[in-house]
Each structure stands twice: as structure tokens, then as C-alpha cells.
């Protein structure tokens, strides 16, 4: 099967562009970067067509760690879940690579951008193809690294490097949980291999499985930006927009969902952990959606929307509907990548403007962008028969089966989602143009990927992922309930109608509403001051403690104090003893005399010399 070719192709692209890309013309950089990803996509297609997905398709390359009873190999495998992820990652990845040629055309560090993007593809494919937790963790950390590198791509801007650091540091908290989960697995199962662990898991005690499940969930919360670790994702928008689309919407941030779905055997035997995932998911979905209502930066709206939609996926997985979670992962990859790429096209057209208050009336100036983004907007709002309708509905039905209050919270969130996405659409594309740039439509290299993603957003719901994964995951017997579906669609359409009313029909209404609910509005506009609270509760104490206790106290006071103290002591002693060194021979002789008298007296008192 040669699975190793799939990740290694982008890695080769990374090496070529990373080492020699500086001297290449742009055409060569493009050919290497896009070619390697397209080849990888082709190899994925070829592999999936030729193998039997229900057999065990594992490849063992070499033994990585051999220590006592623990053996960890560099293994890769393909099953149905991996197949979906591979197609999403390489397919969307290829489209976004192509789009990036147009978007990054006028940016510096062109080859650097593409080599990082290829490196990201490599690590993401390793993550997806891994057939044990440790290899998965390599990919997991690698995508984190690439995320950091690409968020801080404009490294001469302070806010971009800060955002990169924030993403990296917040992810460390989650990775800590992931590592602990792996240690615990080694202790209890003696292996990190998916097959071995999942075979042993049903026999293990529930306490063990719950602990592992909760620790893995902590890792997933960090990577997939769930409460309380979501704060890094909105800041991650400091990176170039294709990065936001590829890494921070379509692929990397869904790694947490993939990992929890991959560990479904553990979770089905640990209902407490699974329920915690559902609660965190629905809480995040609701919480992030409310923040999205009041943002003015177009990318920030979609960033909070991503957090919210990831919450949906967690809700689906947590309700036991793993296939629904993965289904939503895929459709979300379509429409959210499209929303980000579309907003990138808008930003490109307006020469860098991101504030929606300075947009408006763009639908005639950039029609391709407008129509494609509209497809994504109806899809994310769950309007039938677009892709978002199918996936969101399968999650909500499962949530209702799991706990009805989660369904209702999810439905309200769906209404808010439709509202804020259409608010962004109306503010951007309708009304009068409020900015000063000269909007121009993006080149075909950017609009063609947009069009393809638009087709996928509209029709992606007919890709029968739940049926495809039905043989992989346990099925939840949630009855199809037309009322539930109708209610959620009604909420979605209601959200759209409300946005229309507030931003098109009565343009002054939004401002008067914001003025009327000043306190609430400013709370939401400022993202509930979560960043400020974290800053005061975590960052300041850590920084202050490091400064006062560790730096001034421990390092300067104790360690430096000891080292310098020895020196100072020697110097002070020397200062006293120096007085003896008079240079006067007779004073030396006096000391000699004095010394010999002392020696003789001491000898006499000690019993005399014998």
C-alpha cells in the first residue's frame, strides 16, 4: 500500500522549498508545494480505491522504542475513519494550497510560507495515519509547531508573535493531559498500539478508562479549542488567512475530535468521560456563539464560529454519535474553509481591511466571492438541503437522545450561528460601501478553489459519511424525528431572518439594541473578559511569581547570592589578611617568632614532643 508515501510527499516538498526555496522563482516554489500535496492526494485516492477498508491495513516500518515489555513501532494504518480524514486533509489541503498562490502573491517570505504549509500537511497526515498513540502524538505536536510557526508568520508584528506564543503555551496544557493519558495506558495496558489498547479496554475497570478518557479529553480541549482552553484560537487569526482556513478551521483544530472519535472504545466504556465531553462541547458551542454575535473583525467572527462548531462536534462525539461528529467535522471543513477563504478574498480585495464596519456593498464588486461565501453561510446555518443541515441535524438528534437540554441549547446555538454568519454577510456585502479602498475581484487561482468548496458545502451532505462510518462506530439508535429537525431548521431560518431585519430592513436597529443593552453588549463585545480574567488569574501570578520568587528570590537571591557570597567572603578575608603583608621583613620575623612560640606552647600543653 505504501502508506508512508502519503505524508512523505509533502515532507519532501517542505525539504526542497525550505532548504532551497529562497533561490527558486515563485513558479518553482508553487510547483513543489502544490505538486507534492496533489500527489499525496492522488496517492490517497489510489490507496482508498485499491484496498479493502474493512480489513486490517496496517504497515509496520520499524521498531521505534523497545524498552522492557513496551514496544512502540512506527506504524501506520488505514481504516474507515482514517479514510474520511485523509480525504478531508489532502483534499481541502490541496484547494487551500492552490488558493494560497493567489493570496500570498504579494507577500514576503513566499517560500517560507509554502514550506511551513507542506510541513503542516506532513504532520497532519502522520497524525491521521498513525496506528498508535505515540506516533499520533508526534503528528499532534508537529501540527502544533506548524500552527505556531504560521500564526507568527508575520514575525515582525508583535501581536502575531504573541498570538503564536499563546497558541503554543495553551496547547501545552492540553498536551500535558495527552501525555499523562499515554503513561496511564502504558501502565494499564502495556501498549500504546490502537489495536492492543482497544482490545484490552473493555476488560479494564471503569475508573481507569474514565481517567484515561478525561486526560485525553484535556488534550483534545487544548487542540480543538474547547472551554476552558479555547482562548488561543481567536488570536490565531493573526496568521495569513489560508492558514486560518486550513489549520485553524478545517484540519488541525479537528484533531481533538478525531482523537476522541478514534478512542471511541475507551469512551463507550467510560460514560462519565463521554458525558463530560458532551457538556463541554455544548457549553463551548453556546458560549462561543454568543461572543460571535458582537465581533466586528470578520475573521474574529469566523474564529468564534469555529470554536462554536467544534463544540458541536464534541457534542456529537460526547452523545455517542461518533459518526455524526466526524460527519460534521467534514462538512465544517468545507464551509468553514470556504468562509475563511472567502473572507481572505474580501480582505485581499480591500487591501488588508478586516473590520466589517469599513466594508459593505461588496456583492457587486466581488460577485464570485459573494456567491461562494453565501453558499457557505447557508450551509453553516443548517438550511436544508445543504451539507450543514445534514451533519448538524444528526448531531442534534443524537444530543436529544443523550439529554434533551443539550438539544435545546444546541438549537439556540444554531439560531445564533445563523444570525452572526448572516450579520457578517450583510455587513460585508450589502448596504453602502463604507471603506476607502478600491475593491477588485480576486484572481481565478483564488476563486476556483472557492467555487469547488462552494459545491462541496452545498452538496457535501449527500456524501454518506454516517453510513460509511456505520460499520466502524457503534450505531446509536436515535430515531429520526421530524419535529426535532423542523425545530432546528426553524431556529436557523429565524436567525437569518433576524439578521436580515436588523442589518438590511432596519439598519439602525442593531445599534439601538446595542445601546439599550449596553452592559450585556459590552460584556459580549469584550468576549466576557475571559482573556483579562486569565491574565489576572493565571498569567500575572505566574509571571509575578517567576519574577519575585524564582528570579529575584531564588536565582538572584539564593544561587547568585551563594556564588557571589563565596567571592565576597574571600575578598573580605583577604582584606583583613592583607594587613599582615606589610613588606617589612622584621614584622614577618615577628610573626614567625610568634608562631613558633604558639607551636612550642601548644606542644608543651599537649604533653611535649616525644
Amino acid at each position: 500500500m505504501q502508506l508512508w508515501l502519503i505524508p512523505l510527499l509533502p515532507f519532501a516538498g517542505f525539504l526542497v522549498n525550505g532548504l532551497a526555496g529562497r533561490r527558486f522563482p515563485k513558479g518553482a516554489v508553487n510547483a513543489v508545494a502544490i505538486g507534492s500535496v496533489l500527489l499525496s492526494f492522488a496517492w490517497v485516492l489510489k490507496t482508498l480505491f485499491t484496498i479493502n477498508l474493512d480489513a486490517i491495513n496496517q504497515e509496520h516500518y520499524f521498531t521505534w522504542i523497545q524498552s522492557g515489555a513496551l514496544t512502540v513501532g512506527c506504524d501506520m494504518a488505514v481504516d474507515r475513519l482514517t479514510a474520511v480524514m485523509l480525504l478531508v486533509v489532502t483534499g481541502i489541503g490541496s484547494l487551500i494550497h492552490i488558493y494560497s498562490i493567489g493570496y500570498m502573491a504579494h507577500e514576503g517570505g513566499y517560500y517560507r510560507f509554502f514550506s511551513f504549509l507542506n510541513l503542516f500537511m506532513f504532520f497532519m497526515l502522520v497524525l491521521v495515519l498513525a496506528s498508535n498513540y505515540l506516533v499520533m502524538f508526534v503528528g499532534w505536536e508537529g501540527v502544533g509547531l506548524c500552527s505556531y510557526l504560521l500564526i507568527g508568520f508575520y514575525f515582525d508584528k508583535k501581536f502575531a508573535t504573541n498570538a503564536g506564543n499563546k497558541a503554543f503555551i495553551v496547547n501545552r496544557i492540553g498536551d500535558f493531559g495527552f501525555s499523562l493519558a499515554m503513561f496511564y495506558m502504558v501502565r494499564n495496558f502495556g501498549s500504546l498500539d490502537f489495536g492492543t489498547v482497544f482490545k484490552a479496554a473493555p476488560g479494564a475497570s471503569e475508573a481507569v478508562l474514565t481517567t484515561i478518557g478525561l486526560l485525553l479529553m484535556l488534550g483534545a480541549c487544548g487542540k480543538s479549542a474547547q472551554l476552558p482552553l479555547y482562548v488561543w484560537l481567536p488570536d490565531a487569526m493573526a496568521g495569513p488567512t489560508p492558514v486560518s482556513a486550513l489549520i485553524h478551521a478545517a484540519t488541525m483544530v479537528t484533531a481533538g475530535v478525531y482523537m476522541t472519535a478514534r478512542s471511541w472504545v475507551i469512551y463507550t466504556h467510560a460514560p462519565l468521560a463521554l458525558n463530560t465531553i458532551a457538556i463541554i462541547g455544548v457549553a463551548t458551542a453556546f458560549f462561543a456563539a454568543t461572543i460571535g454575535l458582537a465581533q466586528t473583525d470578520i475573521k474574529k467572527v469566523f474564529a468564534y464560529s469555529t470554536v462554536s462548531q467544534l463544540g458541536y462536534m464534541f457534542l456529537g462525539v460526547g452523545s455517542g454519535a461518533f459518526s455524526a461528529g466526524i460527519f460534521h467535522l467534514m462538512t465544517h471543513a468545507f464551509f468553514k474553509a470556504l468562509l475563511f477563504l472567502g473572507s481572505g478574498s474580501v480582505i485581499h480585495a480591500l487591501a488588508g481591511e478586516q473590520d466589517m464596519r469599513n466594508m459593505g456593498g461588496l456583492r457587486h464588486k466581488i460577485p464570485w466571492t459573494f456567491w461562494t461565501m453565501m453558499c457557505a453561510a447557508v450551509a453553516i446555518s443548517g438550511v436544508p438541503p445543504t451539507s450543514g443541515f445534514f451533519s448538524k441535524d444528526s448531531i442534534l438528534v443524537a444530543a436529544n437522545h443523550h439529554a434533551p437540554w443539550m438539544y435545546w441549547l444546541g438549537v439556540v446555538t444554531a439560531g445564533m450561528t445563523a444570525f452572526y454568519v448572516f450579520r457578517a454577510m450583510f455587513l460585508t456585502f450589502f448596504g453602502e460601501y463604507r471603506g476607502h479602498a478600491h475593491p477588485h475581484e480576486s484572481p481565478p487561482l483564488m476563486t476556483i478553489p472557492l467555487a469547488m468548496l462552494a459545491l462541496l458545502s452545498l452538496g457535501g451532505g449527500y456524501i454518506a459519511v454516517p453510513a460509511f462510518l456505520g460499520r466502524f462506530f457503534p450505531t446509536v439508535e436515535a430515531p429520526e424525528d421530524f419535529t426535532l429537525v423542523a425545530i432546528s431548521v426553524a431556529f436557523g431560518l429565524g436567525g437569518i431572518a433576524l439578521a436580515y431585519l436588523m442589518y438590511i430592513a432596519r439598519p439602525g436597529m442593531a445599534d439601538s439594541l446595542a445601546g439599550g443593552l449596553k452592559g450585556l453588549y459590552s460584556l459580549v463585545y469584550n468576549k466576557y473578559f475571559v482573556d483579562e480574567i486569565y491574565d489576572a488569574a493565571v498569567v500575572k501570578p505566574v509571571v509575578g511569581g517567576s519574577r519575585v520568587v524564582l528570579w529575584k528570590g531564588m536565582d538572584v537571591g539564593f544561587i547568585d547570592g551563594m556564588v557571589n557570597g563565596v567571592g565576597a567572603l574571600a575578598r573580605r578575608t583577604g582584606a583583613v589578611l592583607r594587613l599582615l603583608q606589610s613588606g617589612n621583613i622584621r614584622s614577618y620575623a615577628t610573626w614567625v617568632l610568634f608562631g613558633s612560640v604558639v607551636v612550642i606552647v601548644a606542644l608543651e600543653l599537649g604533653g611535649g614532643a616525644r
Partner: protein
Amino acid sequence: MAEIPIAWFLTLSAVLFVLGVAGFLFRRNIITVFMSIELMLNAVNLSFVAFSYQLKQVDGNLFAFFVMVVAAAEAAVGLAIILTVFKNRSTLNIDEVETMKN
């Protein structure tokens, strides 16, 4: 002939040695200091010889000869140094020869 008690020799030796030390410590003239050193060496020689005589062993005498040889060498070198010092500084006052200080 009545034996002279060893204590007498040792007392004389100690007296001579203390005289030498006092001269070394309190006189300022280099020549005098030098002579005081010789006095101390010879005081020690006296006790060596006295012990040697009393214990009927030759070691003490041997030591005395060594001390004499060293003293002779020291005298040669020392006097040469004193001559040079006087030539350069026109003084034999030991307190003025202290360029090593500081």
C-alpha cells in the same frame, strides 16, 4: 673532670638565640641584622653539639657542619646583596628598603 650539665649549654644556647632574635627584630642596620642571624644559627649549633656530646652520637655534629656550610654560603650571598643595596640606595637602614610593599 666534672661533667658540665647539659642544661648549662642549652641555657647559653637559648640566651644567645634570644639575643639573636632581639637583634634581628629591633636593630635597623642591615649588617647588624645579618650578624644577628649568624648568632641565631650558631646558638642552634651549640645545642646540636651539646646534645651530640651528651648522647655520644655523631648526628648532632654532622648537623652543625651542615649549618656552618649553609651559613657560609648565606654569608657570601647576603653580603653581596647588602653591598648592592648600599650601592643603589646609599643606606643600610632596613626600614627604608621596602619597595616590595604595595
